[in-house]
């Protein structure tokens, strides 16, 4: 179990007082969170609270107005997406955003940094390794992205991000719209990836999945963080759950 907490070399990603606007709409109002090395952090909350925007802002896809984003000791605040990615953050977006006119294999290969798989690094992801982890993708490697089922697309989106060998993965609603059995599979894969040493910041509406995966949980209310704690702490806090999650 990795340690968590503020500061120390184990802090991997640190976000401080992040503010983002969409036009006049203040969608992130002073968000602060941390992700430690090897940790899975879940960011939960109802729709429209700014969870996806938080990920997008980290990724550089939404422009933050103020705050700090420090990754592995370097500020990546306001960096364009490709620089954030090169720094070692992978992104699995909401609704997968698979390239519909590319084959499965091309969808994977496009995620390789610099286009060349680093053979010298035994930990680096290769197509073979990927197909081992995602056997369903191997079968459909020549199919166009548009022709995959939702579950396959989700696997592909995760695989695509992994091909860049990220040390931190931002995963946005990976189980949305998937059949229960696939949801299980996705959860297992995320757990497996985490075991390989990849930290994960997860946005998830399926509490079941989130609670079984995460080490630590942030609950988001409107544009702000409302609760921080371990899974256990959340379990023991029905008020927080009622306020931020339940009906």
């Amino acid at each position, binding site marked *: 179990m990795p340690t968590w907490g503020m500061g120390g070399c184990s802090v991997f990603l640190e976000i401080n007082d992040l503010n983002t606007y969409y036009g*006049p709409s203040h969608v992130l109002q002073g968000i602060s969170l941390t992700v430690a090395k090897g940790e899975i952090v879940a960011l939960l909350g109802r729709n429209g609270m700014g969870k996806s925007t938080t990920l997008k802002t980290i990724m550089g896809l939404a422009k933050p107005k103020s705050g700090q984003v420090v990754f592995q000791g370097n500020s990546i605040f306001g960096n364009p997406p490709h620089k954030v990615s090169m720094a070692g953050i992978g992104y699995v977006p909401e609704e997968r955003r698979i390239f519909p006119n590319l084959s499965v294999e091309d969808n994977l290969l496009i995620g390789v940094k610099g286009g060349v798989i680093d053979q010298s690094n035994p930990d680096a992801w290769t197509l073979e390794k990927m197909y081992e982890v995602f056997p369903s993708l191997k079968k459909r490697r020549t199919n166009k992205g548009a022709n995959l089922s939702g579950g396959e697309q989700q696997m592909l989106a995760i695989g695509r991000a992994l091909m860049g060998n990220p040390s931190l993965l931002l995963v946005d609603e990976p189980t949305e719209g998937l059949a229960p059995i696939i949801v299980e599979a996705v959860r297992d894969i995320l757990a497996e990836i985490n075991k390989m040493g990849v930290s994960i910041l997860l946005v998830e509406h399926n509490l079941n999945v989130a*609670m079984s995966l995460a080490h630590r949980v942030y609950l988001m209310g409107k544009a*702000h963080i409302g609760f921080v704690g371990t899974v256990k702490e959340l379990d023991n806090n029905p008020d927080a759950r009622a306020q931020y999650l339940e*009906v």
Partner: protein
Amino acid sequence: MSTSILETKDLFYDYSGLQVLTGVNLQVEKGERHAIIGPNGAGKTTLFNVITGLYAPCRGKVIFKGQNVSGFKPHKLSRLGMGRSFQITSTFHNLTAFENIRMGVLSRMGIRFNMFQRVDKLKDVTRETDVVLRRINLHRESAVPANALSYGKHRALEVSLAMSTNPDLVMLDEPTAGMSRDETHSAVDLIRRLTEGKTMVIVEHDMDVVFSLADRITVLHHGKVLAVGAPNEIKNMQEVKDAYLGHGGV
């Protein structure tokens, strides 16, 4: 039956193969505040768009005030007395708050093709617009362009715009989306005041809002109606909890 103002019968809709609505039967009684809730992708917004005429249903009927209005265009529905707001703020962002509201007021007064009078010389329009602005507490910002308003006020304008044509039925799509708690609070007040004596259908994720506003709730799940009932009944239904909190709960 005769009291229902809006009804959908076995409504189907799909986006090029992706089934979104799979037989929705909805009933909204005249004068009630009706909330539609459900997890993401349940088809709430699509249902809204089909009812308000943005999309024509693939199958099924939309009945408004006893008339089959399936496939009617938005402007026609508006003239029949239906208004709507949008989840993503969709005002006239370069126009001032005053001009925004005036757009609705003009339509309500049937001034739609007049190009022979200056609009600011139409005294009753101006007066009426001012009344609305005062009611929504925007009269101090009447000359401020919509996109320069604070987020909360901009959302309030969004909702008020839907009300500005004085519709009998107003459809609000996540009116408090993206608001802070304080803003949400005043928005709920505003909605309650504005929809006094009207029929309202609301889609919302903020359960505080839903429970403080709604008389009746429909839960949508996978393109179907999962449950209908009063707030308290809904709160305690196991299937609703399942739908919201994931499989098996915590």
